[in-house]
């Protein structure tokens, strides 16, 4: 059993109104020193068996075609032991 985590975030040049709304709440709650908030998505894939290179390549492919939209988002893939 392995866990693969795909994080997806809006590219920095894309406006993130959700992050901006959260930022407003942080300020109201008195948290100081926060310059910016960006809201992203995390996909946690529980994989049966080992994650070999072929499986990882497949996950990268799906992360770039389904889980993220390359026009507006970047993604990272991490394998957790």
């Amino acid at each position, binding site marked *: 059993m392995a866990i693969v985590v795909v994080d997806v975030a809006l590219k920095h*040049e894309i406006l993130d109104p959700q992050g901006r709304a959260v930022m407003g709440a942080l300020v109201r709650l008195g948290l100081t020193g926060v310059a910016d908030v960006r809201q992203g998505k995390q996909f946690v894939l529980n994989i049966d068996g080992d994650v070999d290179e072929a499986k990882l390549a497949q996950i990268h492919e799906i992360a770039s075609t389904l889980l993220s939209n390359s026009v*507006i988002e970047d993604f990272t893939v991490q394998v957790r032991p």
Partner: protein
Amino acid sequence: MTPRVGVITFPGSLDDKDAARAIQLAGGISVALWHAEADLHGVEAVVLPGGFSYGDYLRCGAIAKFSPVMEKLVDAANGGLPILGICNGFQVLTESHLLPGALTRNDHLHFICRDQKLRIENNNSVWTSDFEIGQEILIPLKNGEGGYVADEKTLDELEGEGRVIARYLEINPNGSRRDIAGITNAHGNVVGIMPHPEHAVEKLTGPSIDGLGFFTSLLKSLVNEGKVTA
């Protein structure tokens, strides 16, 4: 032969019936197409309707692009089949890379529903040929994720090639870059628009009948190309 225009229904599509009605009012025959069926039933054009395909889960249009019917549609689009994506349909077209850019959360975060004034900027596309350039139209707009974004290079290309088909007038309702409400592909057969022409086809229910122009444009284009007879 009267033109047959397909309307694809995905789980969560809302405006497929209105789109079918608009096609019929314009003089066409509407043909219901189903997301799970990889068959376009020989239609001469396709409308991707508004709504919330697959619940808008993940991203609007993201899951719809992998449906069986979309594989056929992408091939057909590249072969020149006229396709109009309205609202969620526009999102499906950008997710499928048939149109550049993306639709993102409205900059003010609110869902918006209003009658929206637009200016037609291009009447060379299959779906806008019945309008005059500069014509102002009023059709309903209703979206939560309608902010059109693309990188500056893409936006410059769209402007330079005259591929912005309509722009928001008086107010930019969702933060769309350069007030863009709709665009076309380079060939002019694939058009995406965020506001809803299919809701402005009858005086009883719409703010105008300006939306009918998109559907009459299509039917005239099909006749002119000799695909069907008048």
